[in-house]
């Protein structure tokens, strides 16, 4: 098991290297560039060339890459072209916000998704099932930002149940320890701060959870139906076992295998959803960093955020593979 993990972690290195090359080349092939974006209306070809020299962007791309790589290996990803601050510091500040949002969204998706999919399969063809299937179709089809704005309009503006944006109310004087707003409140016993953070989290988490929730419901439903028709479930029934035993012991565990894969893939996609959700709810996480960096061609920040996203994706899928070994005895990790 340990050897498997170590080997998989070693595999991460070439993955990230290759990806860094791709991002590097891709960014520099985009029309426009940081100089033009920074100068805006004042941009003249001379000024752009001058600024490019200052930023080191006049050098050949391979040279730029080697320099980038050399510094990146020491943990220095450069300074943001927008704020001038070290990218790593920016990410460190924004990361907890995004992690909090993603975990909340994933929790909603998994905790609601698996039971819903399961119940839909159990009552296949009945109104409950039909409603679930249609609901998930809508859930997958509705664009995240549109849903975000709808939620905000209804539950924040019209009903006033939840705050419309931000992570914490400005009048809350919270002490920051870890950067995770809810956790900080618990650690410092400022429970009002925790509660305030939770209230802020509800709408964006729901918006971000919609697509993974819908996908998990569908996969769970299909997987449960598939397993219910399998030979070993017939064997279980031929033993006269109670229906609850058949469901829990024989159906559910087998049905969870494809679901765990889906959870891993959806976790990776959360970052993409977070960009839009954070934008709508002014969340101030990685998504916001990324969105700003794309419009302003902030190369250092883009490179760092995308690589981090890739790293998270790889690690999450490693976790999924490990969970497979726990659920399915046929998978033995070596």
């Amino acid at each position, binding site marked *: 098991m340990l050897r498997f993990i170590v080997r998989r972690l070693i595999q991460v290195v070439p993955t990230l290297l290759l990806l860094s090359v791709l991002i590097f080349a891709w960014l520099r092939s985009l029309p426009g560039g940081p100089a033009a974006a920074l100068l805006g209306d004042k941009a003249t070809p001379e000024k752009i060339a001058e600024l490019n020299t200052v930023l080191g962007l006049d050098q050949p791309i391979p040279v730029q890459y080697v320099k980038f790589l050399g510094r990146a290996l020491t943990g220095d990803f450069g300074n943001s072209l927008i704020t001038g601050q070290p990218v790593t510091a920016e990410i460190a500040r924004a990361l907890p916000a995004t992690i909090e949002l993603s975990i909340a969204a994933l929790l909603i998706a998994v905790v609601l998704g698996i039971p819903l999919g399961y119940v839909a399969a159990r009552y296949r063809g009945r109104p409950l099932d039909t409603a679930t299937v249609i609901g998930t179709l809508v859930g997958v089809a509705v664009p995240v930002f549109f849903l975000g704005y709808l939620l905000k309009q209804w539950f924040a503006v019209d009903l006033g149940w939840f705050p419309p944006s931000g992570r914490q109310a400005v009048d809350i004087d919270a002490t920051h320890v870890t950067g995770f707003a809810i956790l900080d409140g618990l650690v410092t016993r400022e429970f009002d701060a925790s509660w305030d953070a939770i209230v802020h989290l509800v709408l964006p988490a729901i918006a971000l959870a919609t697509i993974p929730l819908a996908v998990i419901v569908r996969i769970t439903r299909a997987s449960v139906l598939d397993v219910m028709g*399998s030979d*070993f479930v*017939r064997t279980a029934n031929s*033993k*006269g076992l109670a229906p609850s035993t058949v469901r829990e*012991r024989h159906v559910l565990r087998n049905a969870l295998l494809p679901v765990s894969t889906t959870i891993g893939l959806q976790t990776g996609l959360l970052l993409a959803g977070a960009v839009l959700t954070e934008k709508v709810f002014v969340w101030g996480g990685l998504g916001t960093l990324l969105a700003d960096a794309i419009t302003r061609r902030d190369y250092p920040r883009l490179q760092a955020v995308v690589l981090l996203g890739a790293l998270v994706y790889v690690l999450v899928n490693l976790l999924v593979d490990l969970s497979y070994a726990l659920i399915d*005895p*046929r998978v033995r990790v070596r």
Partner: protein
Amino acid sequence: MRALLEVEDLTVAFTRRGEPDSVAVDGVSFDVQPGEIVGLVGESGCGKSVTSLAIMRLLPERGNRVTGSVRMEGESLLDLSDAGMRERRGRDLSMIFQDPLSSLNPVIPVGLQVTEVLTRHRGLKKDAARREAADLLDRVGIPDPRRRLDSYPHQLSGGMRQRALIAIALACTPRLLIADEPTTALDVTIQAQILDLLKQLVAETGTALVMITHDLGVVAGLCDRVNVLYGGRIVERAERHELFRAPRHPYTHGLLGSIPRLDGPPGEELTAIRGSVNDNLPWTAACAFAPRCPRALEVCTASTPEVEEHDGRLLRCFNPVEGS
């Protein structure tokens, strides 16, 4: 002596909205005496598996209609509540299936799959159930049974898996065991071992066995009486020796004729039954087998042959092969 199992006029139709029902089992009647081994023989699609699933009430909940009666020790199984049927399944009657790998749950140990039936019907507690399960695995010839309890199905060989399934089916010493092609997925030497094991176990426990197979070789070594099914109906029933000595229905005759013989002349051609089940006529207007039958007369395609009994043998044919 009262029969252990009486199946009367059992009919199973698969229903689909907007389509005519498809009748898989068409008025099948047979009985099984306590401790008896009865064969249900026929080629693929003749309704033998559906018959067994209908007796066990393991057909899907929807999309089929079962009529007729199935009585076990006088009690109508088709009229039992779901809970009542679950009470009997695994305890009074149990079943072995065709593919031992897919019939075992891949993600839980074999031991639990044996003990769960013991805890369910015999009320054994964990440790006692484990000891009993190890004994059962030992009885079906699985070496090192204690260790095997913790094995997963994929860690066992095909023959071992089928042995484990037999152990599960016989765990509560049921009075009736239905075996649906239990050796089809196994290679020939293992087939013989499994059949010997089944024969020995049912003899020891007095369990009656319904053996469902397409393989007349299996029937020859095992069954007391044989029912030959064609197109969802029984076309011939006889004592095993009678059936093999003098098959009277042209279909049975053809089945026996298509078995290669070790003592036949070298280079002898196998005689096959021509056509396939797709050529069947509906029983309602004709003999379903008529299009494939070498002895078909005009009457065979014009009206339905009824079952007739001669000297303890059941026959559904207008022009049977002469008995010798």
